[in-house]
């Protein structure tokens, strides 16, 4: 008896050691602060470890990249060990458990609540087949990475806002201890489904055809055929909801789409594919990537570009290397500089050069020599003319344009549906674009 107790204590100690080590490793991988730490591209690892992210990404983009390999260890862990990830590796779970252990009351009011984690997972998967994984952003590793990335220096409120997912989970934990892990977390649900699959395979191999439901797992689960049938119906409905949700989200973007980082997936996919981990914003040296706090609901908090103070540097493609879900494509520098973020367009009514002033700020700053002065329309109102074949929407011109409050030269998103900016603009005096 004493020996068993000792063994239990030992195993608990060992488990605690493993969990805190994993937590420390996750923080070390994702922490944005120090320059001596791991290189910036290591930021991709933490969210990319999640098989949930890998699944959503692969189904949406219909491709499996080298990053999918990163999800393999956790996949195998979940396959071979019951709740192996939750019990030993998850940093969010550790924070939740630690928070709960500090409290004296540990009542579980929610015990009768249905497990919506599997539904979230299934809806995400079916949505992903349609190109819009609905709940990929609920991945705990992505939430954790976003929280770490919020502490990039200099600290800005908009960056911190992007990392508020984890504190929100902790607040949920305060009021309903254990609810997130056992009922909501889609990664945990996927893990349990994997374990069930594992059991099923084992039973099939052993020749047992009667399946009596899973054994107890880390989230308090019950068994029984009735329950299984009820759950199947629920899962079926979730799958349908995923399809409908994806279709709605894909359609729910208007003509004024925000500017996304270079190589971003199409706008109807982007809001779903992006896990909001904040990696792209963290590594951007120009600090032009911000979570879109005022964005439309289906792409809320997804990164958008703001050229008010700086522009997308011609010598940088760091954001292309750190996206774990493929929302931003992995592009080489040459590929990135050819990728069109948007197109610079001039408002000749406010342009200082068109008013006869000696301003040529946009002409002199353009890294791609895409802006020239056009005297032909009216020699008294010469205008910077954008060569659409050279412009990739880097925003250098917008960042230096001196007119206020609106910049006369602004990068506008290309209509992604037609994908052909030249055609829409061709109607207006060649390369010119007139407002109103």
């Amino acid at each position, binding site marked *: 008896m004493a020996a068993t107790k000792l063994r239990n204590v030992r195993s608990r100690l060992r488990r605690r050691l493993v969990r805190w080590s994993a937590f420390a490793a996750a923080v070390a991988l994702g922490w944005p602060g120090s320059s001596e730490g791991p290189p910036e591209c290591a930021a991709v690892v933490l969210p990319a470890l999640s098989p949930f992210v890998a699944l959503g990404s692969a189904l949406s983009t219909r491709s499996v990249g080298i990053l999918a390999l990163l999800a393999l260890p956790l996949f195998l862990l979940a396959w071979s060990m019951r709740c192996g990830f939750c019990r030993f590796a998850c940093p969010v779970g550790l924070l939740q458990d630690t928070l709960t252990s500090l409290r004296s009351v540990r009542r579980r009011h929610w015990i009768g609540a249905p497990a919506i984690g599997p539904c979230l997972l299934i809806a995400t998967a079916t949505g992903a087949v349609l190109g819009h994984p609905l709940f990929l952003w609920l991945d705990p590793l992505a939430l954790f990475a976003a929280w770490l990335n919020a502490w990039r220096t200099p600290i800005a409120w908009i960056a911190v806002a992007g990392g508020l997912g984890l504190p929100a989970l902790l607040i949920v934990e305060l009021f309903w201890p254990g609810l997130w892990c056992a009922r909501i977390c889609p990664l945990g649900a996927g893990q349990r489904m994997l374990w069930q699959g594992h059991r099923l395979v084992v039973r099939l191999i052993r020749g047992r055809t009667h399946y009596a439901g899973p054994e107890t797992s880390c989230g308090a689960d019950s068994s029984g055929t009735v329950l299984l049938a009820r759950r199947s119906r629920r899962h079926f409905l979730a799958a349908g909801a995923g399809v409908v949700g994806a279709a709605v989200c894909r359609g729910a973007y208007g003509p004024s789409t925000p500017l996304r980082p270079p190589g971003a997936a199409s706008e109807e996919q982007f809001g779903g594919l992006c896990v909001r981990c904040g990696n792209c914003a963290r590594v951007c040296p120009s600090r032009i990537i911000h979570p879109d706090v005022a964005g439309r609901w289906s792409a809320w908090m997804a990164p958008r570009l703001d050229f008010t103070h700086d522009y997308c540097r011609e010598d940088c493609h760091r954001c292309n290397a750190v996206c774990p879900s493929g929302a931003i494509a992995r592009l080489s520098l040459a590929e990135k500089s050819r990728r069109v973020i948007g197109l610079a367009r001039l408002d*000749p*009514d406010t342009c*200082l*050069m*068109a*008013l*006869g*002033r*000696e*301003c*040529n*700020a946009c002409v*002199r700053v353009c890294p791609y020599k895409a802006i020239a*002065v056009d*005297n032909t329309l*009216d*020699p*008294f*109102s*010469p205008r910077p003319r954008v060569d659409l074949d050279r412009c990739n929407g880097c925003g250098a011109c917008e960042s*230096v344009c*001196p*007119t*206020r409050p609106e910049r006369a030269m602004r990068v506008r998103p290309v209509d992604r549906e037609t994908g052909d900016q030249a055609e829409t603009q061709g109607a207006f005096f060649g390369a010119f674009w007139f407002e109103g």
Partner: protein
Amino acid sequence: MKATLTRRHLLKLLTAAGLGAPFATRVVADEADASIQSAPSPENIVVPVSPRDRYPAVLSRGRVIQPGRPLAVMHETDVLVVGGGPAGFAAAVAAARAGSKTALIERYGYLGGLWTGGLVLLVYPTHATEKGVRTKVVRGVGDELLERIARYPDAATNHAAGKPDPTTDPEITKLVMDQMVREADVTMIFHCWVADVVMDGDAVRGVVIESKAGRQAILAKVVVDASGDGDVFAAGGAEHEQRLHAVGLVHRLGNADRADLDALRAAGFKNLGEIEPQPSVRWINLRGPSTDGLDIAELSRLEIEHRRSIWQRMERIRQSSGGDKVFLLQTAPQIGVRITRLLAATRQLTEAEARSGVRPADTIAVGGTYGPGADNPGFAIPYGALVPKKLDNLIAAGRCIGVDTPMVEDMRLIATCLLTGHAAGVAAALAVQEGCRPRDVDILRLRQILLHQGAFLG
């Protein structure tokens, strides 16, 4: 001409000695003017033709050959400043005040260059704006000039303590420049072009000028090239490069206060120019196409083309509602060449260095913040940017100094030209006094004199 200058100088000295220090400058100028104009001047009388050596070019086997010939030395001086624009003006006044015998030559009949003759009336940028705090960078000679212009009625807008970038009246600007040059005892020679340089090995010993009086030489110990186009250093064989930039023509709108500008803007005339001190006048910038500002065929074509398009637009404005009272007051006497030659200097100023905000030890001027709404501490101009790589006894000033492409836009502005001119003038005087080459001037001493003359060095 020589006789007139001598008489004028003598008179001025006598008058200055007779009067006390207060009000001296204004009174001296007025007295001198009155004396010249009241001297009896018989008109239309016959004088002997001056014996002038004739060495015409000859056509020999289809080629035009200029025979070798001796040139009369018209004038000898310590510091010769070529070009009477903002940079040349500041250089001449500064060199003379630093104690050197100084002469200033100018191709037209007035000072100010493109400021007055080109009607680019906005003096910009006079301040550096960093984090919203303005620091005046145009101090010393340039600031004194602006102060004295502003003392005249309706001579400058936006000129008050802490206010940046005044617009000045071109005629009063010319007038005050004349006064300051004369008070500084600079020998002023208008109406002559630099045709060539007088060389002695790698050193410039003077320039050859061309005028109605024929070809003559002016000898000098140091030449300041403030020609804007680098005419002197190019003739002297200094390494340089050439740029194309927009070449335009400014014109002025009369009766602007009797026009309905908003109605005209609504009718499509977006560019109705900038205000002037006189409320009835506006100056309008015509940017023009990018071309070679040294090509006289091109400049001739553009003069005609620009004047034609200005007149056509003026007619359309007069036919529009709200524009029937306005008239074309003037097209600028000088075509607006923005940049042509750029010196390859011993220390080329790059944009990266300029924007770093660093003030190196060889800073001889601090340029203001360029661009509306821009916020930066301005930029330091190192002495080496004025000095040619090999050519000696020459200092460049104004827009043609050694900078990279983006910095051209800062360097060619009036305020910055006043600054580089000031520094070049003091450096030239110092080189003369120390008997050294301009490249060997003691920069500490140069900065001391500049500070003493009121310049801002950061």
